């Protein structure tokens, strides 16, 4: 009985994980509840007017959309996000959210790419030290895509480009002639040193990147996108003078975090964020890298600027025509994940200031949950009674299966709320109660199939086998449809719909697990018991009740045909007297015979 053992191991594994998690981690033995049942933290964000832009409704709506996507991507917590009074955004998060979650909500994530003009040591003043190319911050390099270990074609390209880039750096003086051009000249391209106005040079000299106050990114630090810009590295190890914005974050089509893969395909220990640009971004990025490639250090670097701080300033070693870039820095795993998530959903159109952050109580009282659970319990009892009435002893199999399914659902949800941040809302509870019906349907389909097979005259063991092979197909097909709905909605919808999809998927999978690992093995075991195999009156599988008669009566004899078997009486029900063609002919012949006899008598 391997399936039953597997199921037992699954349950034991879940329980062990939970108990261990409760003891040594922050798991709890009951599921976490959502905002409507438990309350949580409410953050009110007020938009900060940056460069004189008006706060439009559209911008607020877009900001809500982006915050929702970010929160959704971090789990299935079902945050509640709304606007208040036309301009504020209210974000309700269940329970006590982590610092990381709050950052997802608050940070604007304005990402831009600017060419590096000058790199300097972080300390202020010292104008003579400008343009020291050996500042130790950025040994990160941008390779071609730099990630595709599988794509050999790309790697080859990268290899040759690398060699070319070395040669180009060696020459290196093509751009240096520009450095002399004064403030008056119109800059020829974003790397032109004439962006570095006298004003900006002073700013650069005065900037103190060792002061922690200058290392806080934010709206006020983003700077004019069409002018030169001075800022710090995010870790305070260098300061930069940068050219105007060349690529903005909205040209990024996707971002993901992972371990860095070298050009040789070796995986390093370094956390990086990989970016994919859209077609426009790819084109601009190719132009930019082509131009930077021919420049001398440090102007062959470009800076990746997030919320006004340089998070990475890699050197260009090759032209990147396919729009793949890699951001490296001293990321922790969590930081890389957070950054990728923020970039994935775009930057907020506005920056926000946290106006208040307060605890709020549940909007639905305990009463609702208790009554809901009570209703579920009553429903379960009714289902049990009905199954017993319909299926007699088999009803116990249904009840046992439902109880195991319930236990499994409880355990899975508790584990998921620990690992995944899943939270149970009242609609979720209702969904689980409805799942009783859908789970029980699998058993009903199965039992009815077994009965059909018994009606065909098979003994129970064979009927269970044949019934299972047919019921299995139906159960798999119908559950596949539910699973498809769950997967599509989970990945495409947001907010409450996503929570629903998660619950639906979960209950469908549990249904499959129970039918395959519990109900069917139990049926196999039971079909060997005499009580069921001999079709006891209360087994629910009594062949005589099912209208099936085994034709073999033992001792090499078969049942003699019953007198009435040849021509069954038409049943007057539903649509009337239906006979097979053969029956019809027989009846007609009989009628004709009688008629002839009668005629004979007459004659």
């Amino acid at each position, binding site marked *: 009985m391997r399936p039953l053992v597997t199921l037992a191991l699954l349950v034991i594994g879940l329980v062990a994980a939970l108990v261990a998690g409760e003891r040594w981690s922050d798991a709890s033995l009951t599921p976490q509840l959502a905002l409507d049942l438990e309350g949580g933290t409410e953050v009110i964000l007020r938009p900060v007017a940056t460069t004189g832009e008006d706060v439009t409704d559209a911008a607020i709506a877009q900001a809500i959309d982006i915050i929702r996507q970010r929160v959704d991507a971090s789990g299935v917590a079902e945050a509640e996000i709304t606007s208040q009074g036309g301009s504020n955004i209210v974000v309700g998060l269940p329970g006590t959210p982590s610092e990381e979650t709050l950052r997802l909500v608050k940070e604007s994530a304005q990402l831009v790419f600017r060419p590096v003009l000058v790199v300097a040591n972080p300390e202020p003043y010292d104008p003579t030290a400008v343009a020291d190319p050996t500042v130790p911050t950025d040994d990160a390099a941008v390779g071609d895509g730099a990630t595709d270990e599988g794509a050999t074609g790309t790697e080859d390209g990268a290899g040759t480009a690398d060699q070319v880039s070395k040669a180009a750096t060696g020459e290196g003086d093509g751009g240096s002639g520009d450095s002399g051009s004064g403030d008056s000249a119109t800059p020829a391209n974003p790397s032109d040193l004439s962006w570095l106005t006298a004003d900006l040079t002073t700013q650069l000299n005065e900037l103190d990147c060792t002061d922690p106050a200058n290392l806080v990114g934010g709206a006020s630090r983003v700077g004019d996108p069409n002018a030169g810009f001075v800022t710090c590295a995010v870790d305070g190890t260098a300061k930069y003078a940068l050219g105007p914005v060349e690529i903005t974050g909205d040209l990024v089509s996707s971002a993901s975090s992972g371990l860095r893969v070298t050009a040789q395909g070796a995986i390093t220990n370094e956390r990086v964020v990989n970016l994919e640009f859209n077609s426009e971004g790819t084109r601009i990025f190719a132009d930019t890298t082509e131009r930077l490639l021919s420049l001398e250090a440090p102007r062959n670097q470009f800076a990746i600027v997030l919320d006004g701080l340089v998070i990475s300033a890699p050197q260009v070693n090759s032209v990147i025509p396919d729009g793949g870039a890699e951001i490296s820095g001293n990321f922790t795993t969590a930081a890389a994940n957070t950054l990728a998530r923020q970039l994935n959903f775009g930057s907020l159109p506005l920056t926000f200031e946290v106006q208040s952050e307060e605890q709020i109580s549940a*909007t639905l009282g305990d009463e*609702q949950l208790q009554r809901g659970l009570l209703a579920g319990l009553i429903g379960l009892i009714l289902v049990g009674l009905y199954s017993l009435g319909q299926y007699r002893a088999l009803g116990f199999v249904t009840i046992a299966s439902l109880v195991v399914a319930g236990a499994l659902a409880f355990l899975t949800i508790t584990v998921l709320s620990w690992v995944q941040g899943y939270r149970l809302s009242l609609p979720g509870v209702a969904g689980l109660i409805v799942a009783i*019906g859908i789970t029980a349907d699998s058993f009903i389909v199965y039992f009815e199939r077994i009965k059909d097979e018994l009606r065909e005259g098979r003994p129970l063991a064979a009927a269970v086998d044949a019934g299972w092979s047919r019921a299995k197909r139906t159960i798999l097909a119908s559950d596949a449809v539910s699973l498809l709905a769950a997967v599509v909605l989970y990945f495409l919808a947001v907010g409450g719909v996503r929570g629903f999809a998660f619950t639906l998927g979960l209950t469908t999978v549990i249904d499959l697990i129970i039918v395959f690992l519990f109900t069917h093995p139990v049926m196999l075991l039971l079909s060997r018991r005499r009580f069921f195999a001999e079709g006891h009156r209360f087994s629910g599988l009594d062949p005589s009740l099912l209208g099936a008669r085994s034709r073999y009566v033992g001792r090499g004899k078969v049942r003699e045909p019953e007198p009435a078997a040849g021509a069954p009486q038409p049943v007057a029900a539903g649509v009337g007297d239906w006979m097979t063609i053969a029956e019809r002919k027989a009846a007609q012949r009989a009628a004709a015979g009688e008629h002839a006899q009668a005629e004979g008598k007459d004659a």
Partner: protein
Amino acid sequence: MPGRMAQWGNDLYTGKRSYNIVGTKNRWFALGGAVVLAAVVLLTTVGLNLGIAFRGGSEFTVPGVADVAEQPALDAVAQIEGADPPRVSVVGSDSIRVQTSRLTDDETDELANLLADAYGVDKDQVGSSFIGATWGKDVTSKAMRGLVIFLVLVAAVLTVYFRDWRMAVSGIVALLHDVAITVGVYAAVGWEVTPATMIGFLTILGYSLYDTVVVFDKVRENVAKVLDQKRYTFGELANLAVNQTLVRSLNTSVVAVLPVASILFIGAFLLGAGTLRDIALALFVGILVGTFSSVFLATPLLVWLREREPHIREHNALVTKARAAVVTEDGAEEQVRVRVGALVPGEHQGNRAQPRRKNSSRPAGRKS
């Protein structure tokens, strides 16, 4: 009762007893169509009563409350005519927040006064503002996009699985029927539509398809070799499948409806308006309608679609001809009524039924 039910199930299985659902399909199409039409008319004229999660509303904050009970706020809002039942929560340690449907300026003033009285604070301290929808247009539009993609995918999956696009079409038509009626009932009853209701509608969507797939799987099994025989028409075999799964359909819907009914009962009668009642009504209606459509609409629709195919029509003509041939042979004129059912194995007829040896070397005359 189970005995009788089992007997009934047997008769349905063997075709001894049969409900001609496919044959009377026009009646069911008319019934389903009429109810859907009524639902659509209701939705366009009366419309849904969307809650504050969809439309936004008014929000009141009562700070510095000594006793943070929710009941006074509920009572206060109940005195305002036309205000939806509020969502009340405690913010921080001593503030009460009340959210209800959007009120006019006068009503806002009135409710602020009532709340101030109820909680014993100064009227000026009660703050009010408008709040936006938590279930905004973007949530709805994304859900709709997800649904459309799901329907396209599920149509593809069903077409591949059943090897027949008509089954996919029939299943989806039945699904739209179920959802339209369930939503229509909300317009008729006028209960507030909350996010929980929406979740209920989505659940019905899944349940309806699930239910239809189970019936169709039996239809597929029965009609797999329909063209290889001349005994029954496509419609008769499909009808047999519906009859054979009738016990299952009945049991499933009873089992699914029992917990929902208990939520609805407890939600509506013991708790009054609230999440449980909202979701349970949608599910209750949806499960009943879903069972109806999987039995009375989906398969008849499939038969109607299939019978428009030339080879199915030819086959039908063939079957009719074969039956007619039997009748003429016997000289009877009345129409033959055929029992459509699972083939019940025959009885053993004994040695006499065995073919007789035609060997002339055996002594003749031993006829029996």
